[in-house]
C-alpha cells in the first residue's frame, strides 16, 4: 500500500531510497570511523568531561 501511494504521487520512490541510502551511508561511515579510530583518540575524547578547571590549570602551568 505504501509503495502504491508513493507511485501514484509521481516518481518519488527516489525519496524513500535516498533516505534509506543516506542513513545507511551515514551509519556505516560513522561505524567504520568509530571502529577504526585510534584508541588514544577515543580515550582522549571519552575523558573530556572529566577535565576539571583546577586540573586544566595545574596541567597547563606545569
Amino acid at each position: 500500500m505504501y509503495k502504491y501511494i508513493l507511485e501514484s504521487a509521481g516518481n518519488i520512490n527516489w525519496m524513500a531510497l535516498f533516505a534509506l541510502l543516506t542513513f545507511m551511508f551515514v551509519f556505516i561511515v560513522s561505524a567504520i570511523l568509530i571502529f577504526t579510530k585510534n584508541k588514544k583518540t577515543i580515550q582522549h575524547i571519552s575523558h573530556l568531561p572529566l577535565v576539571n578547571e583546577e586540573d586544566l590549570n595545574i596541567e597547563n602551568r606545569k
Partner: protein
Amino acid sequence: MSNLETFKYDDKIVRNFAIATSLWGVVGMLVGLLAALQMVWPVLNFSAETSFGRIRPLHTNAVIFAFVGNGIFMGVYYSLQRLLKARMYSDFLSKFNFWGWQTIILLAAVSLPLGITSAHEYAELEWPIDILIALVWVAFGINMFGTILKRRESHLYVAIWFYIATWVTVTVLHIFNNLELPVSLVKSIPVFAGVQDALIQWWYGHNAVAFFLTTPYLGLMYYFLPKAANRPVYSYKLSIIHFWGLIFIYIWAGPHHLLYTSLPDWAQSLGTVFSIMLIAPSWGGMLNGLLTLRGAWDRVRQDPILKFMVVAISAYGMATLEGPLLSIKSINAISHYTDWTVAHVHVGTLGWNGMMTFGILYWIIPRLYNTKLHSVKMANAHFWIATLGTIFYVIPLYWAGWTQSLMWKQFEPDGLLTYGNFLETVTQIIPMYMLRALGGAIYVAGVFMMVYNLWKTTRKGKVSDPEVSAPPKEKIVSGKGEYWHKWIEKRPVQMLVAATVLVMIGGLVEIFPMIIIDKNVPKIESVTPYTPLELEGRDIYIAEGCLGCHSQMIRPFRSEAERYGDFSKSGEFIYDRPFLWGSKRTGPDIHRVGNKYPDSWHYNHMLDPNSMSPGSIMPAYPWLFKRKINTKYTAKKIRTLQILNTPYPENYADIAVKDLELQAKQITANLESQGIEQENLEDKQIIALIAYLQRLGTDATPQIFVEEK
C-alpha cells in the same frame, strides 16, 4: 607553555538558568497538581482562567518548556564551555537567550489561561509567541555554533552532537507545525487541515518528546553522569552508534500517535515499525549509562546524585520499552485515549527528566557557588520522596487506564454494552485519580525540599566565574589511515548540519505524499464548510480546551461504533483547521454528538454538567452564558479560510456576520421552545458552542438515521 590563553567561563548564565529551572519546576508541577485535583473535585475549577481545559496546556507547556527547557540550557551552557575549553561565543546572546526564554514562558503563563491557543498539543502558543520562540532559539543556535567554532579542544564530545541534533531538529519541527495564517494578534488558522494537520502535529508532538525531552537530556547524561561518577562513559563507541541510530529512527515514529484513526494505513504501519526499531538505540543508550557505573555501585548507595541519575536512566529504559509496545496496534487499541498514556508519559517526565534534572542541580549548584551541598541527608530524603511520588503517580494511572479501557469494551451476551453510560467508567476510577493526585503532591513536596536545600547551599557559597588557561586548538595530527577522520574533525559543523538535514528526509518522506496526494483523503460529497456561527463555536471549543478531555475520532471498533456511532472517516475533516481529534478521553468522544441531544440538553449541561449527568467531573462553564460572541474577526476568518481553499461562496465574508446572527436566532428560538429563557441569549457564546456541537459528525451521517432519532 608560552602560548597559553587565559579566559573565564561564563557561569552567571548557568546560575540564572539553574534558578529558573528550579522555580519553573515548582510552578509547572503545582499547576499539574491543581489539574489532578480538579479531576477529582470539579469545584476546584474556580474560573474561566483556571478551568481544567486551559490549565492542562499550561501544565504541559510549563514542565516541558519552562522546567526542562531551562534545564537544557543550564546543562548545555555549563558543559559546552568546559567540553570546548572556551567561554560562550557571545555574552549578549546568552543573556538574550535567558531573558527571551523567560519572556516566552511569562507570555505562555498569561495567554494560555486566557484561552489563547492554537490547539496543537505542546505547540499551543499563538503565532507572535511562536516568532519569539524562533528568534530565541536561533540566538541559542548562533551562540552554540559560535562557541564550537572558537573552541580550544579539537575533538567534539558526543554530548555536543546531541545538542546540535536537538537544535537543528527542533528548529525544523517548530517551523513546520506552526505554519499558520494570522487572523488577529491572538488567533491564527493553520495551513493544513484534518488528517494532514494531524499527521504534522503528531510528527511534531512525537519529536518534541524525542528532541526536547530526550536527545538534549541524553547529551546531559553523557556529560554529567561521567562527571558525577568520576569515570568515563562505558563505551564511547556505543555512544556514537546510539546517536546516529536514535536521531534517524526517531523522526519516523510520529504516526504511532494516530493508530486506528483516519490516517491512511501505510502511515500507521510505518510509525509502528520504526517505533519498534527504536528499542535498539534507546536501550543501547540506557545500558551505556548504567554500565558507566560498573565497579562504582558502592558509591551509588551513598551519593544521592548518582541515585537520581540511576533511577532517571532506568526510567528512560522503561519508558522507551513501553513506548514501542504501545505502538503495536493491538496494544494501542487498549491504551489509546486512556490514562495508560498519561502514566507512560509521566514515567518519562517524572522519572527521566525530573530525576536527571534534580541530579544535575544537586551536582551543579555547589560547584557554581564554590561550596558543599547544604544537606546530603535531605537530598537523600528527596530521592526517596521523588521515587515514592513517581510510583504513587503512575501505578494508579496504569490501573485506571486498564480498568476504563476494559469497561469501554465490555459487552453483554445480548450484544449491548455493559457500561453503556460513559460516566460509569469514569466514576469507577476516581479513587485512582485521588491516589494519582497524592503521588503528584508527594513529588512536588520533594521539589520544595530540593529548592530549600539548594537555596541554603547558595546562601553559604560565593560566586565567581572560574578562570582557566588552556592552549589554543591544536592541529589534529592524523595517524596512519586516518585521513578522512582528520577531514571530518576539521569541519564538524558542516558535517553535522549536513548529516542532520539528510536524516530529516525520513520525516519528509512520510509527510510529502500525504500533502500532495488528493486521494489519500477521500472526499465525501455531503461534507461542507462550517457556518460562521459554528466556526465561532469551534473557536470557543478550542479556547476552552475541550479537546483536552474529549476526542473527535471514533475508531473502527465494534465497542466504539456501538457507543458513539459510525467510525470517523478522513473525508469528514477536510475543513477542520486545526484538527481536533484529541488524545485523551476523560469524557466521551463527541465526533457524532450532533443531533444526539436537544439544544436545551447542551444548554443545561454546560451550565451545570451534574444536572444532566449526575456524578460528572466536567467543570461548569457559566461564563459562556454571559460573554458575547466575538464577531469582529468572523469575516476575516472566512476570508482566510477561502485563501486556504475552503469553498465558501464569493464575497461570503461580507454577509457572514448576518448569517451568524440569523442562525443564532434560530437556535435561541429552538431553546425557547424547549423552555429555556435568558435575556439577550442570541449573542452569548453558549449559542455558538451549541451550533458547533450540533453540527459535529452530522455531515457524513445519512439523513434517514438522523430522522429516526
